[in-house]
């Protein structure tokens, strides 16, 4: 699924990374615990999170994730956006909460994969 489709499904605002909207995402993971993302997530290309701090971007960076969706309308500050831009990571913001966001994406064919 292209990031642009994810943006449409989640009725999301694009915060940064317009040039990467046509990149494909195959699996996603939703978590507010970066510890768990780092420990359990395999080959995920996208992270949905209700947590907003620089470590969300850094976690995505270490794991080679291409896109982060902030749920519940959370807005990252300028420093976080800058960090994401430097790392070619797309940031999206949706008003949907975590459960609904994941459900919408799953229904539309995006797969999970968190877990061992």
């Amino acid at each position, binding site marked *: 699924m292209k990031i642009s489709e994810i943006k449409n499904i989640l009725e999301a605002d694009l915060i940064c990374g317009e040039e990467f909207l046509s990149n494909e995402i195959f699996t996603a993971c939703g978590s*507010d*615990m*970066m*510890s*768990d993302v*780092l*420990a359990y997530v395999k080959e995920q290309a996208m992270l949905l*999170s209700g*947590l907003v*701090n*620089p*470590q*969300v971007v*850094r*976690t995505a*960076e*270490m*794991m*080679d994730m291409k896109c982060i969706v902030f749920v519940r309308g959370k807005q990252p500050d300028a*420093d976080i956006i800058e960090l994401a831009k430097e*790392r070619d990571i797309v940031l999206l913001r949706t008003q949907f909460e975590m459960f609904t966001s994941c459900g919408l994406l799953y229904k539309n064919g995006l797969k999970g994969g968190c877990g061992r």
Partner: protein
Amino acid sequence: MDPIALHYDVSGTDFTCAGEASGKIKKALKELGFPTSITRNVAIAVYEGEINMVIHGGGGVIDAEITPECISITLTDQGPGIPDVSLAMQEGYSTAPDNVRQLGFGAGMGLPNIKKYTDEMVIETEVGKGTTIKLKVFVK
């Protein structure tokens, strides 16, 4: 090639910057042409160590030595040390306070995760003196 040595200071008070060193090491490995799986494994392990250094160890230093065959990382802090290493290595064991959990860490997964992503992991620690963690990831 000659071994490449990298050195980074890690602040013990600035959580925002935690991960800066890990990111730079990852970038260096990528530029040197190491495979994605190697750069990712090293990055995750060093990042977990760097976060630990900030939230538990009061900051410290990270040294990397890179050869085509092996990436060695040493993380050193002068923090409180780890009283029971085998307990700390258990999944789910954490002494992280609530404010750390609100930042998305403190699940007690870091040390086991470092073990998982590296080929060698040695912890030297003394209560009241500090902790040194030595990691190796072999290429191949």
